[in-house]
């Protein structure tokens, strides 16, 4: 008998989440392969409603009995279940998320790709220490409930990251580029290496950062500085708890009219695309901001029920910035966040700048009072622009501001080319003002 049926002998209802992750990975240290690994991990999480109360338990390698017993114990001390589990779904269109060729990529191939990227960088910058890591695999995910939901899906993943470090006495700096895709053909290794090389070329000289409130060009890898507060603010749970500054403002023009943001779960082969969320709710496209106007918040079952609305299929174990896995209960989190592009390439945006700062990445993302929108970060990778040209990289520089202010009154331009960053955010570059820059 399956676990959901067994659970419903002792509880009113049950939901079982299962994942089987199988894959391989390689990591390079100092330009050569150091470790090749494999994983085959089966994790499960069970939620039950027993005596009207909700209980949760998870396990890897444990027995059905122990998992059920843990969930029942949790329920016996729990609170009334604020929501029912997902029932039989309507007919949904499955989202393509499995590329079977990914599973055929061998360790040799991954090693070869890593070596090739390292060589390309060393050809131009022989003195650099280059590291890389690559992984590929498949996750088989299933959600079944006693209310009749039965979803199963295999999702492939393929990721690559490369970093290069320049180490001189008194001046150490590093650059980083990464990609996470579901389909082998979407891994553009030349683009990834090209991105890294561009940063390295830009950074040959150390220059003074413009200070005060210069125009700041956030490259796609830097835009999460502005977006992270929104990812918290648009969460239905933040809205329910009253910690979101967006609460009660649906329909309001809270952002620049050029800004449109969609949380899209159904982009074919999108890095966080899926046919159903971790509670078995079908995913969809959810406009968050259209032309500056707040359209929707995102909800899992719990937040939806507490705010008397419907789940938007955003019940996720973990956010694009990490965490998650079978161990954690689902919560509202974004699927693929897509910011609509504007016009112009990065090069063109730089060309139009008389003086400014380019931010490719920061240290300390998410530290501080994210809910209020405040950010204050060390510019980990940043460059100064003078008279339309990048003149070099900056050091010991900090940016600060409030993301809600910047995205309302501080956008000068949105670039025309969105790029996938952080495995689940499709972001164009954004040229902003109202960001203060200080330097030592």
């Amino acid at each position, binding site marked *: 008998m399956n676990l959901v049926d067994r659970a419903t002998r002792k509880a009113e209802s049950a939901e079982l989440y299962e994942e089987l992750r199988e894959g391989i990975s390689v990591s390079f240290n100092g330009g050569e392969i150091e470790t090749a690994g494999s994983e085959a991990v089966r994790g499960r999480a069970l939620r039950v409603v027993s005596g009207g109360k909700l209980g949760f338990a998870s396990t*890897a390698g444990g027995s059905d009995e122990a998992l059920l017993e843990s969930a029942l114990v949790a329920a016996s001390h729990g609170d009334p279940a604020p929501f029912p589990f997902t029932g039989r779904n309507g007919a949904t269109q499955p989202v393509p998320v499995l590329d079977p060729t990914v599973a055929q990529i061998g360790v040799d191939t991954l090693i070869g790709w890593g070596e090739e990227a390292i060589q390309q960088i060393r050809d131009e910058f022989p003195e650099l220490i280059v590291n890389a890591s690559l992984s590929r695999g498949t996750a088989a995910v299933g959600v079944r409930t006693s209310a009749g939901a039965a979803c199963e899906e295999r999702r492939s993943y393929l990721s690559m990251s490369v970093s290069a470090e320049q180490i001189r006495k008194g001046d150490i700096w590093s650059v980083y580029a990464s990609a996470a895709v579901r389909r082998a053909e979407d891994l553009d290794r030349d683009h990834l290496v090209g991105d890294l090389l561009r940063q390295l070329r830009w950074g040959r000289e150390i220059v003074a950062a413009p200070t005060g409130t210069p125009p700041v060009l956030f490259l796609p890898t830097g835009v999460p500085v502005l977006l992270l507060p929104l990812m918290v603010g648009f969460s239905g749970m933040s809205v329910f708890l009253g910690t979101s500054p967006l609460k009660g403002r649906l329909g309001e023009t809270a952002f620049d009219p050029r800004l449109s943001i969609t949380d899209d779960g159904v982009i074919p082969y999108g890095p966080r695309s899926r046919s159903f969320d971790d509670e078995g709710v079908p995913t969809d496209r959810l406009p968050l901001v259209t032309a500056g106007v707040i359209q929707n918040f995102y909800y899992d079952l719990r937040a939806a029920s507490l705010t008397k609305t419907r789940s938007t299929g955003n019940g996720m174990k973990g956010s694009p910035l990490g965490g998650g896995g079978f161990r954690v209960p689902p919560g509202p989190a974004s699927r693929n966040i897509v910011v609509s592009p504007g016009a112009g390439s990065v090069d063109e945006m730089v060309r139009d700048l008389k003086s400014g700062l380019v931010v490719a990445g920061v*240290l300390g993302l998410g530290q501080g009072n994210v809910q209020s929108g405040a950010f204050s970060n060390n510019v980990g990778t940043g460059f100064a622009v003078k008279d339309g040209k990048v003149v070099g990289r900056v050091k010991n520089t900090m940016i600060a501001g409030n993301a809600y202010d910047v995205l309302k009154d501080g956008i000068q331009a949105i670039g025309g080319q969105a790029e996938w960053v952080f495995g689940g955010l499709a972001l164009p570059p954004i040229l902003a003002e109202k960001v203060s820059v200080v330097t030592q």
Partner: protein
Amino acid sequence: MEDRLREAVARSHADYTEARWEQATRSRVAFQRDQLMALESGEEAGGIVRCLVKGAWGIAVFTDPADLPRKVEEATHLARTASGHVADPVALAPAQVVEARHEGQMKRDFRGVPLDEKRRLAEAYNKLVLAHSPQIASSSVRYTDSWRRTIYANSEGTYVEQGIPDVTLMIAAVARKNGDIQQAFESLGYAAGFDRVQGKEEEARKAAQRAVDLLSAKPVQGGTYTVVLDPDLAGVFIHEAFGHICEADFLLKNEPMRRVMQLGTPFGVESLNVVDDGYRAGERGNTPYDDEGVPWQRAHLIKNGVLTGLMHSRATAHKMNAVPTGNARAVSWEHDPIVRMRNTYIEPGTATLDEMLQGIERGLYACAAFGGQTEFEQFTFSAAYGHEIVDGVIGPMVRDVVLTGNVFHTLQNIERIGNDFKLEGSSGGCGKGGQWPLPTTTGAPHVRVRNVTVGGR
């Protein structure tokens, strides 16, 4: 499982093989405002095999114990495949063969505390926060405990069984006035029992009051300041800014960085002493035996301002002619051990807080940490709150205090080291190489540093 593990590593054809099987028993209670967001207890188990063949590592992670022999073969095969590409082979420093069993001590064993009592503890703190002031809009209280039982065997004959307790408490308050939202928290963590997180009502009130106070605090003005770090923040500073670059795995295949981190190099003022300690009773970073079976040592990183040691795994110790320090740690059975910190601290000096404030015309008193991050010499960490210092006196509260700098310069810019000391494990943990959250402890006295860059408007 002990026999299976011993047999599997003994039968391996790799140059070196180790296997680790873990069983973790956990519980967790989380409240947000009036909602019980999580209440759970459970157990999980999984294993990892690591093999060295001709200087390359192969690893295999699994959850089905019956797979163990097959996983040894798989890891061997992966290592062999990788070894064909290696020019600078990894080798291991000798380690004493040990046969050991260790269990962390708990006054009140949390495994015997009913889930209901854990719930009531968290709920009581949560209520204190919510009732503190009408300006408190929300709260977050989280209790966790885990008993991590690991058994470890390697092909040299070492066998270690350990039980490591871990208990944490996080109390956060969110205050709201008009559109402004401020948060404050208290965060504790120990390698100890349930008793260590009981009686923390004062912490709950402190968090709530601070969130309310922050509503009327001004954002800090960006610029360069003389900063007095409180012990919490100074501890995070030494972990983030300096500790990470003393983890020898990133020097392993990095010749230029090894030159920068040459032992004997003066790194800071003469009064500066920094230690990473593998065992201090009840502390969260405790690692009696690391995940290579190496017993703990105290790593003296800086003595009298001079770099005297690094943190090592067996591989890095071999490369740098050092002794393994017991710093090879894995966050769970899903990961291989990498070089990590344990209980890392600045030793106390001689100055009183008053002496440290003297002579500061315009400075900052930066307190408690939201977190921090480092990238080689660049580091950043955010204070939970701060105060202006004007003419040697601690003044009004300021918020959004984020400090940044270059670690080499900053260590030289330390002006005074306090005569007090606080070692604290937080409820969070350290992240590195995809392994998070690893229990660590940081500690320090008050520390005064000149010329620190502070972000802000």
